[in-house]
């Protein structure tokens, strides 16, 4: 069987209109696509802004679709169910309308959600005077929203497909071991700093409480905000079952501070503010040593992301100048890892 051909924009629009009309139970001619445009997004998924006119009114939506031909590598259906569970738990997320895992519909699994107006660029949040209020509000908002993410019951049958550590295994140890294994598989040169960090982490694996829903990529850059603050949490494709502190630690990783290192939470807040808001909103009490472990582990994982991006370039898969330059970002992440190694208690 040949790989599915890329749909033309017109074909995508026609099929989308047909799909939405069927979901609404109206004839296809009652739905019209006023506009369909591709948005910038990662390589692992495609994003389109879609404006539809329907008998129920105008809809401003985002279409999130797997790249055609990569069926099976991710599960948009699961991501859609995670978003719905998060919404029920009171997490600010875009409302999901419909979706389908059948590649026959739009060439690959997809879903449609509301388009939340606002800004996503971290640089704007950190530097623009118009976002001063958002900068003050968002650390607490991110902490409170995370407490609600972690309150989602992961035993719900619709979330059964979420990946997680094997029963009885320590999620913290599993993350370190998997990350170290990937580092060794990817690196073309020896990395003494990563070797030291792996041993440091394995010596400090914290006990984990009951497993929770972990967002998996919770940071500035994956949220929509306005001048007043947080509007929606995006990018749930790495959601899994694990230790909730993983999300708090990841949010404190140096890379997501975009140069504003004095404020460890995304360049806008302190760990103390974050933890206080998280605990006040019903999150489990945060053990500071365990948080330090998860922040270090997050930086360790970022180093592996750089290795992975540069391998995609070095192996000739994507000849992008951006991927090429990301390989050299290992230098700044290793600087942070060395700083953490020096802090050891």
């Amino acid at each position: 069987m040949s790989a599915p051909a890329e749909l033309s924009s017109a074909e995508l629009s026609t099929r989308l209109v047909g799909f939405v009309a069927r979901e609404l139970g109206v004839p296809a001619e009652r739905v019209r696509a006023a506009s369909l445009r591709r948005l910038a997004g990662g390589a692992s998924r495609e994003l389109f802004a879609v404006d539809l006119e329907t008998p129920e009114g105008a809809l401003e939506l985002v279409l999130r679709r797997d790249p055609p031909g990569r069926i099976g590598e991710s599960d948009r259906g699961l991501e859609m169910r995670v978003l719905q569970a998060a919404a029920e738990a009171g997490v600010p997320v875009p409302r999901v309308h419909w979706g389908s895992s059948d590649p026959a519909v739009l060439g690959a699994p997809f879903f449609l959600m509301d388009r939340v107006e606002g800004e996503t660029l971290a640089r704007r949040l950190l530097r623009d005077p118009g976002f001063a209020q958002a900068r003050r509000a968002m650390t607490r908002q991110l902490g409170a929203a995370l407490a609600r993410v972690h309150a989602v019951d992961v035993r719900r049958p619709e979330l059964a497909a979420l990946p997680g550590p094997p029963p009885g295994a320590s999620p913290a140890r599993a993350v370190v071991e998997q990350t170290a294994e990937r580092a060794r598989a990817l690196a073309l040169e020896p990395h003494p700093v990563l070797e030291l960090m792996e041993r440091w982490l394995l010596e400090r694996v914290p006990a984990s409480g009951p497993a929770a829903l972990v967002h998996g990529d919770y940071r500035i850059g994956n949220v929509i905000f306005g001048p007043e603050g947080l509007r929606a949490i995006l990018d749930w494709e790495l959601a899994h079952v694990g230790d909730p502190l993983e999300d708090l630690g990841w949010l404190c990783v140096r890379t997501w501070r975009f140069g504003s290192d004095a404020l460890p939470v995304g360049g806008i807040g302190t760990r103390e503010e974050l933890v206080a808001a998280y605990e006040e909103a019903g999150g489990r009490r945060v053990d500071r040593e365990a948080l330090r472990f998860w922040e270090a582990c997050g930086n360790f994982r970022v180093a592996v992301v750089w290795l992975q991006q540069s391998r995609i370039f070095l192996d000739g898969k994507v000849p992008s100048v951006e991927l090429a330059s990301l390989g050299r970002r290992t230098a700044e992440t290793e600087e942070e890892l060395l700083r953490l190694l020096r802090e050891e208690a």
Partner: protein
Amino acid sequence: MNDRPDAVELLRAVERFLERDVVPALDGVRQFHARVAANVVAMVAREIETEEAHLAAEWAGLAELLGDATPAPPGREAAQAGILARNRELVRRIRAGEADAGPWRERLLAHLERVSAARLEVTRPPRQRGGA
């Protein structure tokens, strides 16, 4: 060869062209990639300027840590290959637990910090623009 402009001067000309003429003429993803390209060109210029000193310093640091005073092999490629082999030996010792504690760990961390600072001298723009 003493031709002027030399490699670094040529690269600086390319960097200026990308930053002043190409970046403002583009938008969206292509503008972003042009900015990245300008940074990459600047990075290469800094690497050319500092590489000899950085390789010599890393070799000396590794010699001291591994207790092997063999002089650095002549030539850039031989020096790089020698450093690669010595870093593999460093990793072997770390995995064997030799750096888990004690004075050798301290010396190792100090060496890695010096190497890290040298790498950042190359990769980090002199004026911090705060990343993407």
